[in-house]
């Protein structure tokens, strides 16, 4: 199979999205909030539909801002239900995101005639469309695929955020009580992360859809978690695992002539299984006991 310009744009965009998801997903997993990432990925749907209706385009700043707002609202609502209604954490999450997701589905099917937003595309993603949606500046210069630019910018922003704020992100995740004891605002970093997850999700939905984006958030992080005990290494390996899954999944989809998103998600799952079996530290084959050494 010859690799053309289209394949390359798709692969680069896919890899960038996988990196964004791996970075935010790793932080979520360490916070034991993977499920909240799942919730946000679903809950942003009504935001996407409404923003699309208002702005008429995908990947618009409008849509991204709308998604961030809904993501924060989701986080807030989950916490409120837990604290005020005294629901369990998983019940709060289930209640919030199914309600928002369902609202999104209803909006989507009601507006199906009016907006050019394909239900399948939103739910399952369509990476093949990436090269078709080209960004043209008002002066007429063709800048290339819009999604490529958006994901590249998001990727740089997330990298910058994680590099600059690695210390408070790590500390508020690992030991929030100590963090706030020495004067760090734990809620601030919590909402910052949730905002990042929301934006990442919205930008990613074109690639893998609102449902399978969860695979990109969680699986690479889980794979990396099998392979290392080091925070920095965890982030690096998660990005790598995400990128490899995109390439492998894309090749698989081309060979089998099947869904790209489905293939990428499957590749992610297979990678995790490999890591789970062969990891030198925690793998099934060479499991060293993680039991404490008694002194």
């Amino acid at each position: 199979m010859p690799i053309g310009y289209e394949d390359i744009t798709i692969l680069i965009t896919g890899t960038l999205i996988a990196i964004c998801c791996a970075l935010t997903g790793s932080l979520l997993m360490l916070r034991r909030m993977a499920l909240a990432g799942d919730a946000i990925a679903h809950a942003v749907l009504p935001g996407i539909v409404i923003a699309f209706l208002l702005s008429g385009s995908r990947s618009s700043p409008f849509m991204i801002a709308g998604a961030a707002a809904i993501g924060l609202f989701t986080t807030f609502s989950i916490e409120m239900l837990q604290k005020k209604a005294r629901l369990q954490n998983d019940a709060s999450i289930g209640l919030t995101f199914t309600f928002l997701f369902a609202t999104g589905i209803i909006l989507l099917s009601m507006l199906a005639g009016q907006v050019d937003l394909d239900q399948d595309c939103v739910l399952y993603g369509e990476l093949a469309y990436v090269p078709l949606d080209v960004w043209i500046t008002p002066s007429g210069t063709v800048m290339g695929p819009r999604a490529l630019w958006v994901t590249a910018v998001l990727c740089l922003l997330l990298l910058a955020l994680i590099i600059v704020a690695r210390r408070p992100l790590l500390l508020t995740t690992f030991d929030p009580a100590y963090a706030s004891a020495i004067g760090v605002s734990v809620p601030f970093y919590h909402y910052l992360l949730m905002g990042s997850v929301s934006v990442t999700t919205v930008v990613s939905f074109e690639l893998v859809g609102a449902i399978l984006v969860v695979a990109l958030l969680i699986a690479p992080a889980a794979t990396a978690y099998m392979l290392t005990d080091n925070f920095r290494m965890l982030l690096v390996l998660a990005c790598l695992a995400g990128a490899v899954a995109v390439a492998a999944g894309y090749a698989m989809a081309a060979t089998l002539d099947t869904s790209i998103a489905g293939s990428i998600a499957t590749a992610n799952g297979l990678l995790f299984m490999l890591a789970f079996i062969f990891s030198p530290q925690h793998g099934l084959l060479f499991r060293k006991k993680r039991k404490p050494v008694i002194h």
Partner: protein
Amino acid sequence: MDYAIEIHDLTVAFDRKPVLWNIDAHLPAGKLIGILGPNGAGKSTLIKTIMGLIPAGSGYVKIFGQPLKEVRKRVSYVPQRETIDWDFPVSVMDVALMGRYAHTGMFGKLRRADRDIALDALRKVGMEAFANRQIGRLSGGQQQRTFLARALAQRADLYLMDEPFAGVDAATEKAVITLLREMTTQGKTVLVVHHNLQSARQYFDHLLLLNTRLVACGPAPEVFTPDNLRDTYGGNLTLLTDVANLMHQEQHPVRENKLQQE
């Protein structure tokens, strides 16, 4: 007298159920202070309120005569073991270095001196050899010492420790108490939530007995009385037996001294 902590009419409630009720206590600086009380007495809540982690319903706390936010850097905290995720990808050294964040801030540079201080703290608790070990691969005692090293690396003046001896072997407990004693001789104040009545009497200079209300607070020999302990622990049978044993020991001081020497 200099007070490390002044607690004024402190009341804390969860869902309108009071967990701490009208606590009023002054804790002297430079002492090893124990907080005793049954499960659910509000010991952890008291520590967290002192640290500003839980808002006071009414009343207030002063640390070294000032509000907490003026003296944050001078206060360190060792959390209860169960609150830590031991699978988290951080090493012993990573944890010790966190103690320096109070000084460098979240975005400031960690200098060589900071690393040296962290390493020195690890050396003091005998964890230097494990600096690169992930924290889940340590024994309970080593894990506790790692967090103690973080507190030491902060070079604070007041240390708040929530059950540092839970899940810790006897040797570590002894070594840590010696270290804490040493710190108090250098003028540091150490506040420890403790659950073992047997050892409390020997370990601490000062005791605070708590059961939602303050039962007693003062120098250990004055406060550690059967009446106070009964008020603190209520009719708990096994504990009352413990108290009876302790009283028995008190009537035979010679024997107690002998035991200590062994």
